[in-house]
């Protein structure tokens, strides 16, 4: 690599670009955590799924990652107040975050570093890194043309025009739902039909959707440039806004992805399999029906094999779609804040995953409250199951009661 005299770096190609390791220090509630993204599996694609036991900072991790990818040139658009709110507050006072990302650019492993200061990012400290600073800037400049997308846990579509972030560059605007729960997914115009030059994005979207969903999920669906999304259900002609929440928020990020992919170059391949980039999604299972929670990730692995996904989830249905090496289980009680998995989840039942991984016993709080009060009617409730009706349960309890009475009276053992 040549470092030019003006500090810029000439002839720099970062592709293929992949995240390898993230180190977060003093970011919001996180003192220090280290995440590895290189865990591969035979399942295809490049995925990392972050799950948390207790309030463990899943969103903070995605935010740190996103900031590191935007870098020095774009972060100021976020606003100083927002950056200052990310400092870690302890009883001894405030501590500025320090974020580090190791990433692979072509064949070389490189490091991006972001120290915070009162003014935002500690630029003087970065500048002391000489060559390192030039290289980081070169990577950040290249990343502006790379598809980087973040979706927060409240992403949604509505026809309300949110103009608060209109001054931002598109690359930053696309990340805002991760930082502001009231922000909107940026490129939903294509779904709503307000975008005139969206032809390539629409074509890609129309190829992508059948790879992920069945027609049975929402009826026949058509997306036409300038007209938006239409689907037909029980004889009615409906728009994107009429979709169930889970579909709408999933379609929103998928439409945004297709638009972002073609934005820098409309002539790019329409094939979903050719799309490259990095996608961060907070709570991928958001509002999705259980069947879809189970299907979505395996379908995305096939449809978008060249996109690196870093996602979070609360859903054991989603967790069971991952190899243990792709899972990052945040757990404050484990060493380093991460629980290492020594077994696979694929064969486990949802109950097993809740109990074993999320430390949530699958017990019913209603029955537990009755048990604490020693309420005997809990016995009938406990006896009910998918193959025992309430009436059968009552009979069972009656039979048990008679048996136990016999036990108490038969003091002399019967031979």
């Amino acid at each position, binding site marked *: 690599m040549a470092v030019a005299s003006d500090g810029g770096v000439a002839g720099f190609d970062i592709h293929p670009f992949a995240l390898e390791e993230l180190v977060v220090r003093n970011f919001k509630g996180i003192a220090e955590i280290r995440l590895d993204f290189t865990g591969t599996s035979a399942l295809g694609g490049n995925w990392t799924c972050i799950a948390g036991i207790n309030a463990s900072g899943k969103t903070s991790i995605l935010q740190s990652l996103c900031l590191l990818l935007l870098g020095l040139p774009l972060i100021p658009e976020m606003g100083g107040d927002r950056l200052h709110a990310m400092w870690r507050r302890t009883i001894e006072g405030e501590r500025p975050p320090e974020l580090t990302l190791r990433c692979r650019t072509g064949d070389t492993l490189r490091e991006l570093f972001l120290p915070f200061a009162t003014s935002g990012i500690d630029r003087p400290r970065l500048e002391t890194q000489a060559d390192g600073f030039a290289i980081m800037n070169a990577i950040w400049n290249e990343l502006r043309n790379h598809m980087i997308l973040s979706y927060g846990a409240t992403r949604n579509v509505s026809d309300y025009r949110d103009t608060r972030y209109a001054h931002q560059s598109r690359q930053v605007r696309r990340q805002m739902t991760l930082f502001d729960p009231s922000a909107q997914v940026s490129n939903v115009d294509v779904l709503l039909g307000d975008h005139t030059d969206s032809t390539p994005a629409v074509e890609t979207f129309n190829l992508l959707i059948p790879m992920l969903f069945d027609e049975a999920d929402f009826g026949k669906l058509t997306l036409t440039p300038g007209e938006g999304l239409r689907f037909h259900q029980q004889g009615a002609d409906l728009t994107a806004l009429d979709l169930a929440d889970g579909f709408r928020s999933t379609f929103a990020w998928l439409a945004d992805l297709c638009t972002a992919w073609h934005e820098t170059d409309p002539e790019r391949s329409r094939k979903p399999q050719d799309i490259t980039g990095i996608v961060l999604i907070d709570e991928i299972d958001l509002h999705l029906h259980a069947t879809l929670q189970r299907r979505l990730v395996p379908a995305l692995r096939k449809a978008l094999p060249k996109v690196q996904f870093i996602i979070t989830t609360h859903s054991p249905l989603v967790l069971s779609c991952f*190899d*243990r090496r792709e899972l990052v289980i945040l757990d404050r*009680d484990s060493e380093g804040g991460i629980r290492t998995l*020594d*077994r*696979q989840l694929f*064969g*486990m*039942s949802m109950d*097993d995953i809740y*109990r*074993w991984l999320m*430390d949530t*016993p*699958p*017990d*019913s709080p209603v*029955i*537990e409250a009755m*048990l*604490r009060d*020693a309420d*005997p009617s*809990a*016995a009938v409730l*406990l*006896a009910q199951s998918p193959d025992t009706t309430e009436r059968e349960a009552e009979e*069972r*309890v009656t*039979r*048990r*009661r008679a*048996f*136990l009475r*016999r*036990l*108490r009276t*038969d*003091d002399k*053992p*019967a*031979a």
Partner: protein
Amino acid sequence: MAAIDEKYGEGWKETGIGGPSRDFWNNPDVRGALYAMHGRACAYCQQYLPENDRGDVEHFRPQSIYRWLAYAFDNYLLSCSTCNRLHKKDDFPRRGMACAYVDRGRLDQEERLLLDPTTDPTETWVDYDLSDDLCPVIPASALPADALTQVETTIALFKLNTRSRLVGARLDAIDRVEELLRGLDSGEERNAFILKRLASRYSPHAVIVRRILARIRPTLLPTSKEELALLITELCSDLDLMDRTRPSAIDRVRSRTWDRMRREILYALAVIWHAPLGSNPAEVEILLNAAGIREIVLPFRVEIVPLSDA
């Protein structure tokens, strides 16, 4: 475990600095020995530990407080993840200070408030209130004050009467016994064998099953020797099942898990062979021979006890 003492010495136990850093307690020999002691049931709540929640190797005295006992086999138990992670965590209720390494000779004088499932006569200290539809665990009558406190603390800490799954499973065990006895009375001879197996100390929820049988059909209670034979049969059939479901070598992850679980079973059988509770090594050897696995278990037996001792 002996190798750990050889390698690291005793110094770290006193200072709490250095010592082994890995979780050797998850090695197959440790788990195997625990299966040989408890079967596949949680030492605290007696729930069955299926393949998916194989349970944790639990430190009875938590290593966060008793670092010097982190690698002491006597301090290990097999526990379900609910008991270990949700209820016990790093707690060790006691009066007074935790016993330090320098006072190790007086460990048994420590005023612990929990039952020790391996050394306390748990079965004679707990009872079940059979006049209650929920059959809660209660302390046995006329217990000495210390034992009473330990039983009460244990019931409260592990929520033995308020976890819905656990209470449900215990009631299921009672219903199963009722059903099997009813069948037995109408001529289902095979039920006697099933009841013996349910009442074996290595079976889940065996304490309540034994309590019931002791009252109305004490002849069905298995002897220690029968219990051991049942455990060996169960381990042998687990082994047989595993050998018939061996994953292909290309699937490295599953192969490794398979191999580890198979070794655990073989260590369990080796431990039983070496020191059978209520039986003798020669009898165990006959059973292993009959199952056709004596030769497979032998190297494991030699490994845990070098031939000169055997």
